[in-house]
């Protein structure tokens, strides 16, 4: 198992039930950003509609945006931030 840190921003935090940080364990098979989205959707039903869709939630891996359409491998100790788009002004 590898363990990664997930950070929830803005409405992602609300949708996950006011959780701002969570350690998630992944099997070697699941150690990529695409599987992580699926696992987060299962773990947090409130977040499901948001996390499964790249347009609704952008991921940042170790403080770098994950480019749309890209599936990145995750390794032990990585940090993933969930950043929902916002538009207010």
């Amino acid at each position, binding site marked *: 198992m590898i363990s990664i840190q997930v950070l929830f921003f*803005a409405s992602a935090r609300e949708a996950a039930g006011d959780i701002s940080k969570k350690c998630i364990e992944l099997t070697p098979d699941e150690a990529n950003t695409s599987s992580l989205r699926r696992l987060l959707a299962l773990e947090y039903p409130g977040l499901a509609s948001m996390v499964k*869709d790249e*347009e609704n939630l952008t991921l940042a891996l170790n*403080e*770098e945006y994950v480019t749309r359409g890209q599936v990145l491998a995750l390794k032990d100790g990585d940090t993933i*931030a969930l950043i929902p*788009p*916002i*538009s207010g*002004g």
Partner: protein
Amino acid sequence: MRLSNFFLYGLLLSIGLDVSLTNEEISRYSRHLVLSDVGMDGQKALKNSSVLVIGAGGLGSPCLLYLAAAGVGHIGIVDADTVDTSNLQRQIIHGTSTVGVSKCESARRRIHDINPHVEVCLYEEEFTSETALRILKEGFEKGRSYDVVVDGSDNFPTKYLINDACEIYPVGGGTPWVYSAILAFEGQLSVFNLNGGPTYRDMLPTPPPPGDVPSCAEGGVLGVLPGTMGCLQATEVIKILLKRKPEEITSGRVLVFDAMKMIFKNIGLVKQPGRKEITELIDYQGFCAGPKTIAKKTSKKSSTFDETMERSLNIQNGRTMDETESFFEPMDQHSFKSIEPKDCLRKLSTGWAPWVLDVRLKTEHDIVALPFTDKVVPHRMIRIENVPISGDILVYCKAGVRGEKACSRLVDLGIEADRLYNLEGGIMKWQSEIDPDMPRY
């Protein structure tokens, strides 16, 4: 002093060469002038600069105040809206004395009170695909090339439009622009298109589905948050004008600010490989409305809705931070009814007893509500268990839009459409037509 230098000094005095800052300006900007990273050269550069601020709202207000105070010589402002009391909680360039005045004019008065040396150019119109390039270009033709554009907009379509217009104009690199967006306690900031750097489309290639991201009117915003973000925008504008090194500027990264935790985080951003170059503007309302919806501008049916929105939310022509952003037409299969407040009252007084659902936030319900409300469930969270299994259901929100969405959602969940009534224009229309003693918010 040698004679020749004294002679030159006399010559300069007589013809006024190299005096681009007056003595008054020198004392005004003295705190800048003693900074080695600004100094006389930097201050003159600011004076010769031209900045376009799109939106004189939450973000634009503080940004404009600081750009003016800092001595940016030419400032363009785009805003089609007028000042409303509900703006004053955060739009600090405006005041109680300018409620009802256009935001452009209100901003100009305040700017000239702070710094009469600033030349202000007003665009009392919306920034749209039709006006954007003309506005950017006009700055050039009058010799006030817009060196930087500031995004003070409050919706996805305008942000994409600013992005694309700044990539297109002028030919050969475009214009750098300073992005920010806010919601509740969180803000984002980045400088896009700086010397060919990443753009908004690298961060968000396509918009989220309409209605999925709440606007500030719907989700709320801490008043001081746009203050913080607008000041950060002004800081970046000034650094760009001072030609600071790229690594000193928020380019190639997005600053994410959590005001509740008081944490700033930098997220690195790279250009999307193979992203298409932008060569023309598109229909941004349509682009952001998504495939399932009809763009607002193409819909004639929306005019009555717009009138309602204007009346009830004090919008002039602007798409401001309101429910208009996520507006969409109800789809045909969702043929629930829309009921005018007056018809609703008449029906109720003749014995109609629907189950009444408020689909706003609990906080909004606490401000003002229909006294006969049965349940409060925010429109995004409605589940079939929330509503009774039979009988009519009257749904209402603030201005009617979320009510429509809630009805659509209930139909999707299996509720018969003919049981559903959405209160047209929401509780704000009820306030204006039925119960003027209710507060407006």
